[in-house]
């Protein structure tokens, strides 16, 4: 009970700190809210001192941030979230309506994600249920490519091709179930790919557990075994699923813009840019509450699924039974990427020639040209080094932080939820306000949130691992906590978390580029990959090559990361556990007889 109270207090403290941080944002970043509000209301208006003074009066800015914050909190107590600084409307109904649209979109997107994940795991499930998994390499190139696809690109393609050119589904607005399909696909496909990859990573371990063997020997249908295997793996993923719920609700800005959906992502983005603090505070608070709710539900579901086993320390370790077969795939992918870079490096990425704009791929421009007539191949190649190095550095830092904080779940759990509930632009503004707009700020802003899913993943895995028999046994032999951590827990959790971190590398590269409009990070004409995607997006229909090239190399990066992950697994110590039955040699029936 006391633990619950402490967690609740910690959660509330984080939410309060966040709301206060937003309330102080303009004063911390020294950006006059009167000016940003004026510009959001009417971009052409000259900011004369008189006009700014009138707006300051209207909003009561002279009272200072603390009393404004106090008033807002006081009103919140009575269910009044204040009035928008921009429009003067009541905030609560507007935010609730946007939240409704976003929740609906998220729900449909989750359904799409579940379907995607199921398709990705289908092969493993089928093989596992029929006990033919051993020694086979898990696939994953396809899902990694899917996971690396930027949402806005999928959304543009779906809207243009399915919505406009084919006219199969409406691509604009939010008027009924038919309107949810395309945006949900754009959001759900990459999310489902990530979830599917993580699940696919855990499934072989579940199929290798004795119960699966026993069930197969008993002649239970493969479908039932597969279902139980999924159930066995879900607890390790539920916290991440919770993060997706929150991320899809508040962070679907690009998709909301392309499909013109009045959701929470757009509302908070506009409020963040205009420094419309009441809307921003209310929107963020709603997202934080949603995050807490999602985390609570995930915890509840975990307990329902494996509660008794967790309590009694009766779980098996979900290790992969045998190291994956090394394959040549990463070298193929890597070689392809190297080839592209090598071909492009001698070319000039900055030389523009507007007479040569939007040319399709040809001998002189193998990847075509962009809207200013620059060679796309050259830009992709020259952007590779910057993009990769920075993304790798942030990814590594996020992995380290994630694992470390994942070790202390009571501390990090609420922190993870809160951080991932904050809209990315707002987080960047907060980081800028604290750290200034130096060269390291974009990396900090992206890193500040990149660790969260890894920490959630680590703590979920550790929690299961702590309940595993081999840990109990080791403890019984007199091992202390350090020993357990170093030799039993971390070796079990690190490989899947590392693979997870690699899977998120392309996402980090994209997140970096999405901050450029705040003046953070790479500025044009730099050929950084995220920037390439963003600047060519308006021409996606007329010159698809200009977006496809950077998207393809990003997807290639994802594929390399996932397929090479087999090589990064840490060398495990000699097995301390009872050796698992050598499945290749013994048939399930024999094994069962032996057990009897």
């Amino acid at each position, binding site marked *: 009970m006391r633990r619950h109270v402490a967690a609740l207090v910690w959660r509330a403290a984080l939410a309060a700190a966040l709301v206060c941080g937003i309330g102080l944002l303009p004063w911390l970043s020294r950006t006059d809210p009167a000016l940003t509000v004026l510009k959001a*209301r009417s971009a052409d208006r000259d900011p004369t001192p*008189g006009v700014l003074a009138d707006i300051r009066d209207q909003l009561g800015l002279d009272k200072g941030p603390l009393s404004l914050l106090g008033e807002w909190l006081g009103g919140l107590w009575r269910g009044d979230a204040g009035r928008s600084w921009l429009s003067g*409307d009541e905030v609560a109904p507007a935010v609730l309506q946007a939240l409704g649209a976003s929740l609906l979109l998220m729900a449909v997107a989750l359904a799409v994600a579940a379907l995607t994940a199921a398709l990705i795991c289908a092969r493993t499930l089928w093989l596992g249920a029929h006990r033919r998994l051993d020694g086979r390499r898990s696939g994953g190139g396809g899902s990694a490519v899917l996971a690396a696809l930027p949402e806005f690109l999928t959304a543009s393609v779906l*809207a243009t091709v399915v919505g406009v050119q084919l006219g199969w589904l409406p691509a*604009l607005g939010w008027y009924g179930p038919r309107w949810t399909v395309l945006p949900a696909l754009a959001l759900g496909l990459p999310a489902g790919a990530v979830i599917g990859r993580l699940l696919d990573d855990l499934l072989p371990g579940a199929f290798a557990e004795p119960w699966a063997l026993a069930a197969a020997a008993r002649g239970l249908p493969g479908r039932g075994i597969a279902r139980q295997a999924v159930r066995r793996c879900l607890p390790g993923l539920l916290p991440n699923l919770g993060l997706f719920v929150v991320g899809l609700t508040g962070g679907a800005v690009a998709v909301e*813009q392309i499909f*013109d959906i009045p959701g929470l992502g757009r509302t908070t983005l506009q409020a963040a840019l205009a420094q419309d603090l009441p809307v921003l505070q209310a929107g963020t608070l709603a997202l934080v509450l949603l995050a807490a709710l999602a985390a609570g539900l995930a915890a509840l579901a975990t307990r329902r699924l494996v509660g008794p086993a967790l309590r009694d320390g009766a779980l098996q370790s979900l290790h992969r039974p045998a190291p994956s077969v090394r394959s040549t795939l990463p070298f193929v992918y890597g070689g392809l990427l190297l080839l592209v870079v090598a071909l492009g490096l001698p070319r000039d990425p900055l030389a523009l020639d507007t007479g040569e704009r939007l040319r399709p791929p040809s001998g002189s421009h193998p990847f075509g040209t962009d809207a200013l007539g620059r060679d796309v191949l050259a830009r992709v190649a020259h952007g590779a080094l910057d993009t990769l190095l920075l993304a790798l550095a942030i990814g590594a830092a996020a992995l380290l932080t994630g694992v470390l904080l994942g070790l202390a779940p009571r501390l990090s759990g609420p922190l993870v939820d809160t951080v991932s509930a904050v809209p990315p632009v707002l987080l960047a503004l907060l980081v800028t306000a604290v750290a200034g707009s130096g060269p390291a700020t974009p990396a900090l802003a992206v890193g500040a949130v990149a660790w969260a899913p890894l920490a959630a993943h680590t703590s979920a895995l550790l929690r299961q691992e702590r309940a595993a028999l081999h840990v109990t046994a080791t403890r019984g032999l007199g091992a202390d906590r350090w020993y357990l951590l170093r030799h039993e827990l971390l070796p079990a959790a690190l490989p899947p978390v590392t693979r997870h971190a690699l899977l998120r590398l392309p996402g980090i590269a994209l997140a970096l580029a999405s901050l450029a409009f705040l003046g953070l990070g790479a500025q044009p004409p730099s050929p950084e990959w995220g920037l390439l995607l963003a600047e060519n997006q308006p021409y996606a229909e007329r010159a698809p090559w200009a977006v496809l090239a950077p998207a393809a190399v990003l997807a290639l990066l994802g594929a390399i990361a996932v397929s090479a992950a087999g090589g990064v697994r840490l060398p495990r110590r000699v097995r301390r556990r009872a050796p698992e039955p050598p499945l290749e040699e013994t048939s399930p029936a024999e094994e069962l007889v032996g057990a009897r």
Partner: protein
Amino acid sequence: MRRRHILGSLLLAPLMTACFASSGGGDSSGDGKAGSRLRVALAFPPAENLSPYGADATILSRLGVTEGLTALDANGSAAPALAQSWRQVDDRTWLFTLREATFQDGSQVTPAAVAAALGHAAEAKPAPAALSGVTLTAKADGGSGVRVTTGAPDPVLPLRLSSPSLAVLSSKAYDGKDGADPVGTATGPFELTKVTGSTAATLDRYDDYWGGRAQASGVDVRFIADGTARAGALRTDEVDVAEAVPVAQAATLDKATRKETATTRTTSLLLNSASGPFKDAQLRAAARRSVDTSALAEGVYEGYADPGAGIYGPAVTWAEGKRRQPTGRAGAATPDGTRITLATYDNRPELPEVAQVLKQQLEKAGFRVTLQVREYSRLESDALEGKFDAFVLARNTLVDTGDPLAVLASDYTCDGGYNIAQLCDKNVDRAVAEAEGVAGTAERQDAAMTAEAAILGTDAVVPLVHQRIITGVADSVSGVLLDPYERTLLGTGTRR
């Protein structure tokens, strides 16, 4: 178990529908009235609940909802609207004679109602842009006259009153506590009946409009901020008119649906003449000479722009005939690797591209250029403080009042409130001040062109292109009012 499912779906159904946006009421199309409804996609969602005192006023005026005492004609001079004529009584007083008209709530447009409406606008905080720095009082004068008095002599008052933010609304509009409510209280051919947040609005025809009944029975407006999405809506026949189609999307529309209009928006390169390398007039001249404007108009704007001729472009019809050669230009120096920062914003998608082309042109001439591209509100205060050496700005040259001198005074004089070029030049200040005192329209235009020549002579501003706006209009629609001043779009003759 089954019953629970039914119950669940019964509970869920209204919850689900609540999560969708309500469509702007397009179901009233088959109501038997003559003429069908128009479907319009506008680019800028209302920011202030369609308050007539801010930028949303333009939306109301474009949709034919509100009108002022005067309007702008094609030559940029004041034309009759609710006032059928006016005359200047003395240098601070004008007398406007109203025409017979009714508000959409049925009440008469009386001098008292007009005076009250103007009074409310004058008291609004912050003041409407057209009234900034102006004190104005309006009084009823007889049965059909309105006497408008200004604090200081104002030779352009009829132009000023054409501003959409000085629209005349009935007394009912001001009943609420805050601001003015244009729903059902204006005088135009279309009556605003419903506003759905910042996503949609519904307009019905106002049958008693003084200028005759509109041909369309109503308008369903959708606000779609994303340019690609707007073009897509037109292509899938979800709307009949889509305003401001981005250049990048223009090629995806049929040639017949693209309507180009020259606008008063000029994109210029502003050079910081107060600090940094461009303090040196010879370097400014070198920068001007290195810029090739036709490459921008053709290469970036795909021909939907005219190469920069001056501060005022071809949409300001009188400007070309009165243009003078810039005076007192310095000779160009060699830049010799001078480092400069060039800043611009990405709210208008073409500007970052313009900046990148400029970077190459300037570097060819010997400058070394660093780019800064940000969202506009994150850039403006730095620009006004002169933190950049050069700035690419798209500016409406006939801001708010339609008076050509307003933009010169605010952008290029020592006391100007929007002086990004940081220009403070005695000759310019004198020329602008002289022009501001001139009363007659033609003389004022002449004086404005003299001032323009003086400003261009300093090389603090290099006009790059004059933008054309692309409006997507479906083949079945006729009578769309394509307006260089971006104040009208729908009128009585617009129909499908």
